[in-house]
């Protein structure tokens, strides 16, 4: 089986100019979403590792007990190139020191990106991070083009 995300998707996914989101839903609570603090492909290339401070995960974790379907949105804030990955939650665990360090670098660089596009408070993104952080492991099943233009939402893989 081929990995769903190609190199051009993965380079956007891991760029410091990319805004990252993860969502799910339940019949009881409706949809939920979190702003992420980093994303990387797993070594096997078939899964994604998505990072977010634990304090933002309460509702998402409640929903996961009922429904394992998740969506992950990533978007370059310079080009608006945007993709949505739909797939399944596999597991979660606390982040390793290396993953925490990766998130700090991402938030610092994303903050600079935000300042560059006119968000003067951009460096405050660093304060969004709190210890401990969680790594969500998801298995992508479909990918959709989501760049804002006619045709947005088309399935590409």
């Amino acid at each position, binding site marked *: 089986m081929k990995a769903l995300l190609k190199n051009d998707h993965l380079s956007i996914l891991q760029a410091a100019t990319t805004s990252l*989101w993860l*969502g*799910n*839903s*339940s*019949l009881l609570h*409706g*949809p*939920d*979403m979190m*702003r992420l603090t980093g994303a990387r492909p797993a070594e096997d290339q078939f899964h994604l590792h998505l990072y977010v401070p634990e304090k*933002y995960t309460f509702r998402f974790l409640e929903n996961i007990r009922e*429904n394992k*379907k*998740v*969506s*992950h*949105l990533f*978007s370059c804030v310079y080009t*608006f190139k*945007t993709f*949505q990955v*739909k797939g399944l939650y596999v597991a979660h665990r606390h982040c390793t020191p290396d993953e925490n360090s990766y998130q700090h670098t991402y938030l610092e660089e994303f903050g600079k990106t935000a300042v560059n596009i*006119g*968000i*003067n*408070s*951009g460096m*405050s*993104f660093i*304060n*969004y991070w709190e210890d401990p952080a969680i790594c969500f492991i998801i298995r992508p099943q479909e990918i959709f083009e*989501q760049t*804002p*233009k*006619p045709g*947005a*939402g088309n399935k590409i893989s």
Partner: protein
Amino acid sequence: METGVVISTELKRAFDGVVPFVVATSSSDGIPNITFMSKLFYVDKAHVALSHQFMNKTWKNILDHPVFLAFVTDPETLGMWKVQLQFVEQQHEGPIFEDMEMELMALTTPQNITFSLQSALICKILTVEQVFKVI
């Protein structure tokens, strides 16, 4: 009709589209859908409006499940909120639709994004939860 939700100056600023907001909806079989939208339009103390432009899946999901979530960010403080919304009605004309069309034209023209506004989706604000606040 009021909902008891207080829309602060900060929150209202977060609606304005300087930082695009994110919408999460859910299909009838529980598949979430997340997408960016340009701006949340303030209607009154209890309602906001979304522009129906590129929506396909989002619109289908809202018809299936009218309660959904918007995640907004204040560009001045980076305060972030989850705003739970309930779809009320669709407007194809009238002052809200016309104001929306004018504002979207102003937002998208410099970025060379073409758009075609189909309708204004009027939504009731159910709850507001502050996710992040810089102290």
